[in-house]
């Protein structure tokens, strides 16, 4: 037997202390296969060892929650017998090494998490962060990631309906690719991953196992260095065609009660899927590895257990259902092989050619996996206010053009036109609005979905940043008329062994927790991605929030484009003119300083509820939340894709025009109200004690502020639509 040296331990991403612990749990030395399995289960990606104690603090319950974190995905109730299954996951490291396949398999993996639970996926979303556009790798990575996301979603036939794309130099050597999938399921047809019963068949379905992706999860749990390119073989290769077959075959099998438990083979492949099912059911599992369908010859037990080949599932079947299930998978030309059975040993037993090659107590891999309370430090804030007097004066028109034509604010249709947004014929609001709207098939209700992040805010003040993203996500759902239900989060951070990074993580979560609790907006699923960085340079703390809301009765969506001439524009929420950390400073002066705007949860909630009420009463023509860029950017976004401009008033109170037009104060919305409805809207808002102001009117042809700016609508469109096409 091969001797386990320190080098081998290190290569498996395990610490010497952890290895000692393994020996203690086994009461002996592990062999290489067993070491590989420990390394797959104990890495950060699978074990959440650095994050678990913090994640536990998040609110995960609510009347609307059917399933919180801990399953393949979260589930929320949307009334009648319908439920929505959703989750977001990162695929950052593979996407940097091989952008097309990395992004594609990110989409494939998250889709399996959703249909494993019995849901038909109905929407895909993504949040992608790249380095500076001028960095030599950015263009190729952007192209590859966008084609990969599109390539997978378009082929499998699930619409990619919303997302965000951002650029910042801290992602130069570590891009972020987060994919979210949303599915619809009948409440009484939800499938879980908890094994039940001894002697039940363990069935392998889907693609054959190859040597791709071995140790993918361990790679995702380490920092990059100059040799990262060498890790290319650990990136999996996706086949959306097979996944489409797997999706249809699984949903067909799920029509009756043959399945006891089902788990997709994602990170750490056969290892984590079998261990997780056994662990949840307090059972053992025995696998005959020579039965596993292999794509390549002479694959060893080690390779079979650690491969991350895509489009595979592990199912525990009810006795006597094997033949029927097999027929379904054969119809779809997929592998169906009984590779083992459940046992009462509480051990993972691995046999190969009748010989036991490895045996590990399930608890040692799952329940006894390490948990770290890593040291962390609170952020030291710079208390000095940023001195705006030292800035060179700039004209409002010039500043607006600079923002609207910047990579971060330019229209993203170059990206979204590469995604099929309409397949399944239920996309009522496509991307480009505050949130996408997907109708529930053959019903008149719909869900709204959005993903959001604010990494700069999180960097400068993690607690406020954490609160702000939850609120922004909530606002985005409100402004399309949806009642926000719950979120999933993808927590992208740097190295957790660094106390400051761990502090960013802990404090961002404090903020997320506070906002989620206040807004009754629980976290039902999520994913943590640490070690995003290269050679000690870490990315901005980038928690990404994906939210789902309910529209009980769907009408033609409002969208955020102006609808009519001479409508009255009102702004909900107060403007204080907060410019620190603003796009105005970043795009015009390359200054990223100070604190993010304060988040007042009470105002946020009251304003949101008021807007939702007005939309539901059909009193609003169009609506938009005010976020990055402030009031003027939000207003111009409403004009850009419409046939109308606006004539915007000057502020009555704030003397500083820049602060008024570009300040990023939270909790604000712009509503377009027709003259006929204005009185009613005014009355509702006054009765509800909601702060609002009339800020202008819509008009034909021009976007203008008297004496300050006047831009022809066609020009405004061009300014916002040129960057990607010229890049």
């Amino acid at each position, binding site marked *: 037997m091969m001797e386990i040296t320190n080098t081998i331990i290190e290569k498996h991403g395990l610490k010497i202390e952890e290895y000692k612990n393994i020996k203690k749990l086994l009461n002996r030395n592990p062999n290489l296969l067993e070491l590989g399995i420990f390394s797959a289960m104990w890495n950060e990606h699978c074990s959440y060892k650095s994050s678990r104690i913090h994640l536990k603090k998040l609110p995960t319950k609510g009347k609307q929650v059917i399933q919180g974190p801990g399953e393949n995905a979260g589930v929320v109730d949307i009334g009648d017998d319908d439920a929505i299954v959703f989750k977001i996951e990162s695929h950052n490291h593979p996407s940097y090494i091989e952008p097309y396949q990395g992004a594609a398999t990110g989409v494939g993996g998250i889709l399996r998490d959703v249909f494993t639970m019995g849901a038909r996926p109905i929407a895909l979303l993504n949040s992608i962060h790249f380095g500076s556009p001028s960095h030599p790798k950015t263009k190729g990575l952007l192209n590859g990631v966008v*084609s990969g996301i*599109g*390539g997978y979603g*378009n*082929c*499998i*036939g699930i619409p990619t309906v919303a997302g965000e794309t951002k650029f910042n130099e801290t992602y130069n050597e570590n891009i972020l690719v987060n994919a979210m999938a949303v599915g619809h399921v009948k409440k009484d047809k939800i499938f879980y991953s908890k094994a039940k019963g001894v002697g039940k068949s363990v069935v392998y379905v889907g693609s054959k196992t190859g040597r791709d992706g071995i140790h993918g999860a361990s790679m995702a749990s380490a920092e990059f260095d100059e040799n990262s390119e060498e890790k290319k073989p650990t990136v999996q290769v996706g*086949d*959306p*065609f*097979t996944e*489409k*077959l797997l999706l249809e075959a699984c949903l067909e099998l799920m029509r009756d009660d043959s399945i006891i438990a089902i788990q997709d083979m994602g990170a750490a492949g056969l290892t984590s899927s079998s261990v997780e099912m056994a662990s949840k059911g307090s059972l053992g599992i025995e696998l005959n590895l020579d039965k596993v369908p292999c794509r390549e010859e002479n694959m060893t037990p080690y390779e079979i257990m650690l491969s991350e080949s895509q489009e595979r599932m592990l199912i525990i079947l009810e006795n006597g259902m094997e033949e029927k299930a097999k027929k379904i998978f054969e*119809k*779809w*030309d997929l592998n169906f092989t009984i590779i083992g059975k459940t046992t009462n040993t509480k051990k993972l037993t691995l046999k190969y050619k009748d010989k036991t090659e490895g045996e590990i107590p399930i608890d040692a891999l799952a329940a006894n996996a390490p948990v770290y309370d890593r040291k962390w430090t609170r952020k030291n804030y710079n208390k000095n206010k940023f001195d705006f007097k030292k800035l060179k004066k700039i004209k409002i028109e010039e500043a607006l053009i600079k923002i609207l034509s910047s990579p971060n604010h330019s229209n993203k*249709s170059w990206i*979204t*036109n*590469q*995604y*099929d*947004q*309409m*397949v*399944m*014929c*239920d*996309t*009522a609001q496509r991307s480009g609005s505050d949130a996408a709207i997907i*109708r529930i*098939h*053959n019903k008149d209700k719909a869900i709204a979905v959005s993903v959001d992040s604010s990494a700069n805010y999180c960097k400068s003040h993690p607690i406020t940043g954490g609160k702000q993203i939850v609120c922004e996500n909530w606002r985005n759902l409100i402004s399309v008329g949806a009642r926000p239900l719950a979120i999933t989060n993808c927590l992208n951070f740097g190295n957790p062994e660094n106390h400051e990074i761990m502090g960013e993580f802990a404090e961002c979560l404090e903020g997320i927790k506070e906002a989620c609790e206040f807004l009754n907006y629980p976290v039902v699923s999520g994913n943590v991605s640490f070690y995003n960085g290269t050679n000690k340079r870490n990315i901005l703390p980038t928690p990404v929030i994906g939210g789902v809301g309910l529209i009980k009765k*769907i*009408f*033609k*969506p409002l969208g955020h484009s102006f609808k009519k001439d001479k409508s009255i524009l009102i702004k909900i929420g107060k403007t204080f003119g907060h410019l620190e950390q603003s796009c105005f400073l970043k795009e015009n002066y390359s200054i990223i300083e100070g604190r993010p705007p304060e988040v007042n949860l009470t105002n946020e909630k009251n304003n949101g509820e008021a807007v939702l009420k007005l939309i539901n009463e059909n009193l609003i023509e169009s609506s938009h939340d005010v976020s990055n860029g402030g009031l003027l950017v939000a207003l111009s976004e409403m004009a850009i894709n419409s046939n109308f401009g606006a004539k915007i008033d000057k502020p009555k109170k704030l003397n500083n025009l820049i602060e008024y037009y570009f300040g990023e104060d939270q909790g604000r919305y712009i509503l377009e109200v027709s003259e006929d409805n204005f009185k009613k809207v005014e009355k509702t808002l006054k009765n509800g004690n909601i702060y609002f102001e009339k800020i202008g009117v819509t008009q034909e042809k021009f976007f203008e502020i008297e004496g300050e700016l006047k831009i022809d609508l066609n020009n405004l469109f061009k300014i916002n639509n040129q960057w990607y096409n010229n890049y």
Partner: protein
Amino acid sequence: MKSSVIVFPGSNCDRDIATALEKMQFKNQMVWHKETSLPKSDLIVIPGGFSYGDYLRSGAIAGKSIIIDEVIKAANSGCLILGICNGFQILTETGLLKGTLLRNRDLKFINRDVNIKVMNNETKFTSKYKLNEILKINIAHNEGNFFTDSKHRDQLKKENLVAFKYCDEKGNISEGSNPNGSIDNIAGIYNSKKNILGMMPHPERMIDQIISNTDGVNLFTSLMN
């Protein structure tokens, strides 16, 4: 009116077209690609998607599948055949329609609403449209760049076999209004008997005001007649 929708592994607009057909009062059946016979149908639809993963070449493997012989027989006996997107690609692979669909001019997948013009309204597929009517229809494809030889091009003109052309909002047919590089801005064509229509745009996506618009409805009401 009875319709059949052929389902290949990798078809992904099969449910969409079935929903549309049922909404338009067709009696519809789904037909799995391994079937050796077709139910009695007035209309056969080959839906969009990525049949057989688009491996080898879009539509190539589906064009040689078991059920396709039956589709060819039905077509030759005058049954109405509608191929949308991947269905159009499959029809060119079978030879039921001439020409081919190349990779888009800009080498990227395109999904957006485009304007198309009704070039012939005297067919079973388009009688409810006005001649030269401009429709806004969604396209979603990687290989929609129609190409054919000059002989077929002449035939298409002479026999009035072009169904739809890409145009702008005002109906101008120009390079600027051509999303994918198709020759003569062609978005859909008929065979010479005009019982087969292949088109890249997706009419089944345009039958509902809440989702998009209703510009696709008249294709189905025409067929119903």
